[in-house]
């Protein structure tokens, strides 16, 4: 078994993804079937955000990937040879 930090990081990733999956599932699938005066609605944002927030996350992810590629390519540029 891996030890120390590896185990902590791995398990925290698993727990985080489980929490995210549960919250998002309740938000998208269960909430429309719940009466609009139930207190459960207090814990969730309006449903439009269930589409907007993943969209923003995807845009940020693409920006980070693009920035990373740009930095790497900038560092690897070689000066042109002079004949």
């Amino acid at each position, binding site marked *: *078994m*891996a*030890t120390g930090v*590896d*185990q902590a*990081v*791995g*398990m*925290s*990733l*698993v727990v*985080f*993804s*489980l929490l*995210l*999956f549960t919250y*998002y*599932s309740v938000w*998208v*699938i269960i909430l*429309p*079937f719940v009466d609009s005066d139930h207190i459960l609605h207090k814990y969730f944002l309006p*449903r439009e955000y*269930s*589409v907007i927030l*993943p969209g923003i996350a995807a845009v940020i992810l693409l920006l980070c990937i693009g920035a990373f590629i740009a930095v790497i390519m900038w560092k690897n540029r070689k000066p042109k040879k002079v004949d």
Partner: protein
Amino acid sequence: MTKLLEWLLGVSLVLSAWAVVSFDLLELSLPQTYREVAWPMPLYLLVTFGCYSLATVGYRVATFNDCDEASAELQGQIQEAKQDLRKKGLKI
């Protein structure tokens, strides 16, 4: 039929089923709550896939075996190699 055609056929079938339910293209007049649940389905499946990938990566990081003996052996071999190369004149 090639794999690509099979996949495209499957994806287009699922997409058309989703479009029919979400946008009421066949005038089936389903209850509003079912349409509200069906509409974000592609995004929901994407998020689910992302969560599953993250959980798999995290679980495999947590359960990856440390090989202490192999690590010690490798360190020893690195020292041997360094001494050998120093003797032959390489500066490390």
